[in-house]
């Protein structure tokens, strides 16, 4: 009974973590950018969906779409206003661009967070779920919303896999992650590929944010923890490895759920952090990472 509950709850939270981390790892894999405004973009999507549905009253479906749209626009703004200017800057030495992208996106994330707090207060917001009610699976009463979350996450990740491996655009993205210079020699514009990647990223982060808003609720305080958890999942899995971060998301998700149920919700995040340190000790490049 309890084992099934852990199995089901753990699956939903892990799938959500996986979706949240996938976009983050995709951008790193293709362009080497660690986007520290990630949590802010997810929260922006959730808050936009909440505001559209609860204040404007456009309904849950339109609200969710608006949330994803806002995440897409924010992702583009992040790329064009922060990341691209730093990458193109001639005043920043190449070997320091990484730290500047980190600092820049961090500040950008704080700006988004503060704007959300200013306009929508710091209170937690729960997005109205698309499906409501409870069903009984294997003797465990499970909210339909939780099942919906898990299914959407798996579907989106599956679609992403198809997009990257089966379409022309996806193959260009994959090629750019392996050899950016080679791609430009083939006559493809690298900037265009990056724009595609940021678009995919925005949609992924938007869906993850809206689902999170429906499942657990968010507030402007969630920004930092969300970025930190995506960062640790991605590093645990191996930077730039999408399959690695999927595995890591499930490891972290289940570890947290197990701790919350069997020990105490107060200790929830500690075992996952300890595991992370342990993996860093013995395998610094992460589970499936390349050195």
């Amino acid at each position: 009974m309890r084992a099934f509950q852990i199995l089901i709850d753990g699956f939903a939270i892990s799938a959500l973590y996986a979706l949240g981390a996938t976009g983050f790892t995709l951008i790193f894999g293709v362009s080497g950018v660690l986007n520290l405004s990630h949590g802010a973009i997810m929260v922006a999507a959730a808050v936009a969906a909440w505001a559209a549905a609860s204040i404007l009253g456009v309904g849950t479906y339109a609200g969710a779409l608006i949330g994803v749209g806002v995440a897409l626009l924010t992702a583009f703004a992040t790329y064009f206003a922060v990341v691209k200017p730093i990458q193109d800057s001639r005043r920043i030495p190449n070997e320091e661009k990484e730290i500047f992208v980190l600092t820049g996106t961090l500040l950008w994330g704080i700006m988004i967070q503060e704007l959300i707090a200013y306009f929508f207060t710091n209170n937690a917001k729960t997005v109205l779920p698309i499906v409501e009610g409870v069903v009984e699976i294997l003797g465990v009463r499970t909210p339909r919303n939780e099942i919906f979350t898990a299914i959407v996450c798996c579907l989106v990740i599956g679609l992403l896999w198809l997009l990257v491996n089966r379409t022309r655009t996806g193959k260009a993205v994959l090629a750019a992650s392996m050899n950016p210079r080679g791609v430009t020699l083939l006559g493809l514009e690298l900037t265009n590929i990056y724009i595609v990647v940021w678009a995919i990223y925005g949609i992924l982060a938007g869906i993850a944010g809206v689902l999170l808003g429906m499942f657990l609720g968010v507030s402007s305080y969630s920004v930092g923890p969300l970025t930190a958890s995506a960062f640790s999942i991605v590093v645990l899995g191996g930077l730039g490895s999408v399959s690695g971060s999927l595995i890591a998301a499930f490891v972290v998700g289940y570890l947290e759920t197990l701790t919350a149920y069997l020990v105490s919700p107060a200790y929830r995040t500690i075992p996952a952090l300890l595991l992370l340190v342990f993996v860093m000790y013995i395998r610094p490049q992460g589970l499936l990472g390349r050195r």
Partner: protein
Amino acid sequence: MASFFTSRLFFVSLALVVIAATLPLYVSGYVLGLLTVAFYFGVFAMAWDLLFGFAGEVNFGPTFLIGVGAYTAGILNAQFGWSVYLCIVLGALASVVAGLVLALPALRVRGPYFGLTTLVAVLMLQNFVVVFADLTGGEIGLTIPDVITINAGANYWIALGFMTISAAILYGLSQSPVGLVLQASGQDPVQAGALGFNIVKHKLAAFIVSAFFSGLSGALLVFYFGTASVGTVVDVAVGVNVIVSAVLGGRRTVLGAALGAIFLIVAGEFLRPTGELATFIVSAVALLVVLFFPGGFLGAALSREARS
């Protein structure tokens, strides 16, 4: 190094310190209190810059070192009643030990991996403070019975003196042969290693020095505030302020980091009337500096001097 004592930077710094030292004679206790905190933050930022600016290691966990120093000192005083000065010294030492424990594994990895390891250290410390609430005061914070002094002027002078001495040592170190090796290993570790320098040993030394000053400053800050809390010495947001200070003031300048910290704290206070938008405005200004003046305040000023 010797040329520093004849440089314009030295005279400007000296003048600033002398002017700053006279402030308690004519400004309010409120301004002094603000600057006292800013000076301790200045040391946090300079210690961070020694590690990042020179060794090229992005330490996302400055507040791990600060927090260990602050909480060790605070707990020893609050729970065991040891004297303030002993607690401060032990706080700084605890921070050095914590720095060693963190640095040994962390220095094996580079770039984002190093950053994450240090970030995780902060998150763990934060969790432990909350879990061991009996000892640490948990989320409410730890009330500390003793303070160094309650005189605003004396506190201000202590902070100013401490920052000046720290700045002299950290800046001197950054310009010394050790600093040059660090800088070389930050820019091209392979080549620096090929020249026969033990990079890991140098970075470890930088980490320990950084930890010592962070912990010492954290412990002093705790005895100034009279409390230790996650929100003031451990939280990731505090670490972000330290990093932003250093980048804003000019990385690799050490002294610029202190300027950045003072600017950040004073600007935040000036913008307080704007309410919740204060942090937004400070972050926006910092982002503009990062985008358009990547050298930071001092970097921009020095390059202009070099050009003329």
